[in-house]
């Protein structure tokens, strides 16, 4: 898939930010959410997931919340992650950037169709 290779984003970080836009999630929840929103094209492995989370935490784009149980997944306490305002802003900026790109692509008649 050369098309995807040439485009640096959507990156794992952006997808994680988008996944957390709806609700706070734990690691596995993020992984599932990302898989769902990319129609299973991106399944984050643990290494990528947690190194991305670490990076996002360091950049204060997300934050950790109190560990709690996920009723659906048993009694283990899990760390949940929440999107910070900075993270939300970045996600929006990135989305706008992509929208700009789309507009550009349409203008150049590279992309047709009404969607997005």
């Amino acid at each position: 898939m050369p098309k995807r290779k040439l485009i640096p984003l959507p990156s794992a970080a952006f997808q994680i930010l988008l996944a957390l836009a709806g609700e706070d999630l734990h690691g596995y929840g993020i992984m599932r959410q990302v898989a769902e929103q990319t129609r299973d094209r991106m399944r984050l492995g643990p290494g990528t997931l947690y190194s991305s989370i670490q990076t996002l935490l360091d950049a204060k784009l997300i934050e950790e919340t109190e560990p709690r149980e996920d009723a659906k997944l048993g009694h283990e306490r899990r760390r949940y992650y929440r999107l910070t305002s900075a993270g939300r802003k970045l996600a929006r900026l990135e989305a706008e950037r992509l929208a700009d790109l789309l507009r550009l692509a349409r203008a150049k008649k590279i992309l047709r169709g009404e969607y997005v």
Partner: protein
Amino acid sequence: MSEKIFAWLLHLFPSRFRKAYGEEALQLVRDRCRDEKGFFSRLRLWLDLLGDLALSVPRAYFPVQHELTGYLAHLRSGSGPAFLVLEEESLGPGALFFGGLLTLAAVVSFSVLLNHRVKHVPLSALIRAAPGSADHRSSSFGPRTPEQARDFQQGAIAPATGPQPEMAASGPESSNANDARSNGLTRPDGSGPRKVQSGQRLGSADAALAGANLNRAERRRVVREAAANLEKHYIDPVVAQKMADALREHEKNGDDDAATDSSAFAELLTQQMRDVSHDRHLEVLYSEAPLPRRPPAPTPPFQARYRKAMEQANCTFEPVQTLPHNIGYLKLDSFPDVSVCQHTAEAAMASLNHADAVIFDLRDNRGGSPGMVMLISAYLFDHPEYMYNPKENTTEESWTRSPVPGSRLADKPVFVLTSGRTFSGAEHFSYDLKMLKRATIVGETTGGATDVGTFHRLDDHFGMGIRETRAINPYAEPDWAGIGVEPDVRVKAADALERAVRLAESKLQKK
């Protein structure tokens, strides 16, 4: 399982990462394992994990955090579209070449592995190879080393292909069990012969089928026949009945059910009989080649061939040598039939007559005729001596015809050289001379032949050897059957002659 492997793979990450996220990462894999069941889901899971490892492990060591924050700053500045790649430079030709090479190697090795024929090993064989079972038994019965096993196979089990002196030696006089063995019988116990057998299996699919699959009905038939033969032929009817009952009982209780491999089954039956009788001359044998209905009797052409082979080989007597200190040395590679080789034997003994000490080299002796054993032994005594032989009933013939007129060997020191290849009749000679303290045995423990029984066909592939004679063993049992004759002086077969010469010299000097 997946979780354990992943826990191990986690060690690829820097400890900082493991400490912070190791437990969570494991939890994630656990969650996925629980949610994604089935072969393809698992496969996808593992592809994800491995792909992820390949990407994220290097990144974990070379964090790209500053780039992301830089990117953030860049976005905040509000300028136009921005691209950010994690790798600043495209891959160099060296990396591409190396990666290509690695991929090629992986593809090639994978296809090689796919095409590689791996021998199918039935589960039962693996179970049987467990410590303490077959290996243990082989230490007390049958050939003990691969080398012994090979000779065992060549010499004693399948000797009837061509006029070799060894085969000929066991010809006319001992035509019972030995002949039956010549049909390619494999011994039930001993790891060696089984190895040979598995080698044969590779060559023949049919044989493999015959060897591997044994159903209950077949086992029952073999047990029934074996028990009947015991009752009919075994020398002690009381013990025979006990053994037959034991065999049937084991079969009924399902003790034999695990033995789906024919050789293992033969071994098992042998052990069951021996557990009752402690008779090492009893055995059940398995043959991959179908057993003929009637063992071929020695025919006149056979006799003629034998005679010719013996004449060509000087009856397997090598020329007598006189070593320093007047030590006579005779290498004898079988005990040939007296009716053919009497004169050769007498001539050889006459050449030894002047010696002050005698060394019989039986390291390559595969056995042969009891008559020849008696003939040669007779020279070594000044009075008739009883020579125990489990193959024959105790009769007048069991005493040597000593003294031999003109023999001066009756009081000379005698040394017998043995090896793991020393077999059957040669063990008869060694055992009795050792027990009579007439000779010093120098070398290795002998092969431990159990070929004293009459062979009875049980079905197309199974047979059993039952000893139907009753010789009186004046020495404590057991004899050499299955365990061999222990040397008095244990040295490697290759060093036996040198040692015997030294022993003879020191003995002669003392005189």
